[in-house]
């Protein structure tokens, strides 16, 4: 009884620690923070959200972010699934070295690669486009998707594959009809982690969008100036949180399983 009370208290403290700074952000987003005609400064108002809806630049930034993140998730799953299957089911020349190489790119500071990526993408016309950012975020998201998916595939018994092949399924048909449904939670968790790492990344998104195609993070940066409208900044931040929180909600029961790998 005593320990369950202690646990509850601890969880409440953690909840408060996480939520209070966010609560203040949400509160500020509903307050007019600049002097405006007809709206009392410091009182409840929807003006910030209305301003976002009336700004083509901010709306475009939200759309840009959604496009490149969706593209990135699709790319990472598209190439990550077959690679994870190879690592989970087969031994091949250089498999361990390749796994390590991928891991190294997950943890390489993005700033290290930023300059040549900018030069390279400028040469092939991929700067200022959501496709460019989607591609560049693969450098850390492909390793993470292979890592998570490999754990999920390895937990499916090998007999599962063998039975499907005996039944006459080809590899692609087995993939889409049997393996993908069997590891659906794993795919959800992978999509979640690719989504968040791509959604929150700033360094590469900034260098690749010097003129156009700005994501939501850079649009927020551009709002800072001589007289920053903090209410508007916070309203954009709150909007930036919505897709992430929605994704967390959908994968909440599988979140932890994503990292259950060989023990």
């Amino acid at each position, binding site marked *: 009884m005593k320990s369950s009370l202690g646990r509850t208290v601890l969880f409440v403290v953690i909840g408060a620690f996480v939520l209070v700074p966010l609560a203040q952000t949400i509160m500020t987003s509903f307050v007019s923070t600049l002097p405006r005609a007809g709206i009392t400064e410091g009182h409840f108002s929807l003006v910030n959200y209305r301003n976002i809806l009336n700004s083509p630049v901010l709306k475009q930034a939200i759309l840009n972010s959604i496009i490149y993140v969706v593209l990135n998730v699709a790319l990472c799953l598209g190439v990550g699934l077959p690679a994870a299957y190879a690592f989970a089911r087969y*031994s091949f020349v250089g498999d361990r070295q390749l796994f390590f190489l991928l891991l190294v790119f997950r943890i390489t500071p993005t700033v290290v690669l930023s300059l040549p990526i900018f030069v390279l993408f400028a040469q092939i016309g991929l700067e200022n486009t959501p496709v460019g950012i989607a591609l560049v975020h693969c450098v850390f998201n492909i390793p993470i998707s292979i890592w998570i998916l490999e754990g999920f595939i390895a*937990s499916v018994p090998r007999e599962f594959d063998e039975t499907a092949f005996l039944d006459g399924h080809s590899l692609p048909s087995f993939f889409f009809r049997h393996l993908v449904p069997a590891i659906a939670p794993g795919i959800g968790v992978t999509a979640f982690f690719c989504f*968040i790492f791509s959604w929150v990344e700033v360094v590469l998104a900034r260098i690749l969008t010097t003129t156009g195609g700005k994501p939501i993070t850079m649009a927020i940066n551009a709002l800072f100036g001589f007289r920053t409208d903090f209410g508007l900044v916070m309203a954009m931040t709150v909007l*930036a949180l919505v897709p992430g929180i929605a994704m967390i909600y959908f994968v909440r029961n599988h979140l932890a399983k994503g990292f*259950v790998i060989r023990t």
Partner: protein
Amino acid sequence: MKPYDNRAWFLVLPALVIVTLVGILPLIAVTNYSFQDLFSLNNPYWIGIDWYRNIVTSDRFYASLGRSFLFSAIVLSIQLPLGIWIALLLQRSHQFIVSTVLVLITVPLVVPWNMIPVIWLNFINPNAGLAGRMLAWLGVGFDYKFNALHTWIVLVVMDTWHWLGLVVVLAYAGISSIPAAYYQAAAIDAASPWQVFRFIQLPKMKTVLSMAVLLRFMDSFMIYIEAFRINAGRPDSATAFLSLDLGEEIQSFNYGPSAARSIIYFLIVLTVAWTFKAATSTRARAPVGMEPTR
């Protein structure tokens, strides 16, 4: 034992092509830049290892390196035990509480990185922020602009707020993969909770925890936006981390020196990752105790 089949390479190839384009090629380019004096990118002049020599003989580099390691060490020694403790408590909780806590604690992970310092500066603002006003009300003179210790406290607390969720998720993943039979055996042997933790849970969590250490080490080691936004390395360079020096160099378009700095940075990352690989690859590869999902 997995079958040996080199045709598996074809399955890995698409991933490798993309990683080559966005990872390996840029890395080769950075290495090339680091040996050149670049007036512009089309006008290189070979200067050998001069940039490297300048960096490794400067006191500033070692001071920044030391600060970066210290920050990572502090952050890890707080977040790792705290994350494991929360995960252990979660394991004994109702499924609804587990879901709620996991959802809550991962919310900061989806905040865009450049917004985290904005949220926290708003929170500790002495005039408008809840924490700032609370500290003022308690009579605590908190000045993160001119007091180095206070800047460090803000950075550590903010980083913990941001990343604790990842450690909890990883630790909880490790704990929930332990088969019930281990606990039953421990109960029969009348093992104490500490013994269960020390001899069952901790060894079983080793892989995911080493991953947590690695990810947390790297992300805290390259902390940039947060430190830059809060105090830009001040006061008195007390928060001038390695990443801030690199950022400064890149922003001044010093291609050669910033490339050399990047390579040194990358080599540190590689050394740490290699050490981890060596430390964790002694274990045998075995299937997890996780039930198949179908």
